[in-house]
């Protein structure tokens, strides 16, 4: 009914809503200033060391595999729309496509990339 302009409208609506909510809260608020209040919340114990440190590489591996499969998903969209028109050829194509992908998947599995450690 509205076209692409609706994206701008909805973004503006979200921003307006959030800004009004935060400003309303600021207006009725009577805050107090104190140093301990601004410390990181770690259940009462003072925090040790830095927070922005190295973390488990496993997350990175999963992100990489995700990227491969996500691109695959994007390739599938145009295919999915024309399946009915193309017919049996589309079935053959998708089996070949998934076979190659599955080999890569098995390789990643064999290398232990899908195991959480």
């Amino acid at each position, binding site marked *: *009914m*509205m*076209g*692409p*302009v*609706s*994206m701008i*409208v*909805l*973004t*503006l*609506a*979200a*921003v*307006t*809503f*959030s800004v009004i*909510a*935060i400003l*309303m*809260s*600021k207006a*009725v*608020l009577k*805050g107090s200033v104190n140093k301990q209040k*601004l410390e*990181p*919340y*770690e259940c009462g114990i003072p*925090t040790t060391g830095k*927070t*922005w440190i190295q*973390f*488990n590489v496993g*997350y990175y591996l*999963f*992100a990489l595999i*995700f990227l491969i*499969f*996500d691109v695959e*998903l994007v390739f*599938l*969209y145009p295919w*999915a*729309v024309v*399946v*009915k*028109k193309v*017919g*049996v050829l*589309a*079935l053959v194509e*998708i*089996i070949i496509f*998934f076979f190659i992908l*599955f080999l890569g*998947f098995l390789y990643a*599995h064999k290398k232990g990339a*899908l195991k*959480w450690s």
Partner: protein
Amino acid sequence: MISFSEIASSVHQWLNSHLSPAWVLTVEMVIVGVAAIALFALLGLVLVIMERKVAAYMQIRLGPNRVGPKGMLQSTADTVKLLVKEGITPAGADKFMFNLAPFIAMITAMLLLAPLGFAKDFQIWDLNIGVLYVTAVSSLSVIAILMAGWSSNNKYSLLGAMRSGAQIVSYELSAGLAIMTIVVLTGSLQLSEIVESQRNGWWIFKGHLPALIAFVIFIIAVTAETNRAPFDLAEAESELTAGFHTEYSGMKFALFFLAEYINVFTVCAIGATLFLGGWMPFHIGNWEGFNHVMDYIPSSIWFFGKTFFLIFVIMWFRWTFPRLRIDQLLDLEWKYLLPISMFNIILVTVIAIYHLHG
């Protein structure tokens, strides 16, 4: 009977006869914006009280019952309470990112409302790549979570955000493949056409086994994508206090909370549109009388009824399954759901090519 589409078109005509085209567009933009905000706030309040009531009755207790009739105004009272809470930005935090994250969460949640068909011929934007739009925009929500977790300067937040990131991107794959089965059956990415294709039966009934498998995978995947129990590792309160929004308080926390509930609503609405026929009424073969009675129920009630049924199912999960460990969670996706959904795509291709569906 008055329908939403008739109201919309009569408003459009009235505006066109009284104002110049540029003003008509402006006024309509304002109307849509205000309506979206109203829907947003209302849904937030309703879903919070629904969650608490469902939880209470599952555990054989009454739940909130003091504020308003049967406690129905409890979430409104909670919102007012959150309004007078201070929004703290911690000393070591990356202030710009920290304050930007709730806005991103809200914007992505709001943008997902655009292609939903709330009633017959009643959509904000009926774009021809609706399914692609939904998957694209919903995957942006992970950015808000990572931003919030990273910028908080808190180890709980960082861990929660990282877990949540790994989880959301993993389950996005099987959710995407489950959605793809319906695209294969319909041959269109437009949500209104997908609804139209279910006029003679919903896909979950006439799509045979693949549609059923896809529906189950879709529900599991969206439960994980919206970070809800049993996949709520990102905010596992017994280990990470509150996950990525540990440091958020006051209204900024409320915005995250609201965006989360709206995301639950949108994914359930997408599920209802793809598998349960959107605003299409329930028909049984050639039972004319029964079908006429079903047609009499407004299309918006059908849409919201199906959506809230799916929301109820997701809330039901929370009190049925214990929380998974992160390795179990990733195993479930990569070793079971993903291969099954890839196989399911091949199965559904066979059905689509030989026109075995109704």
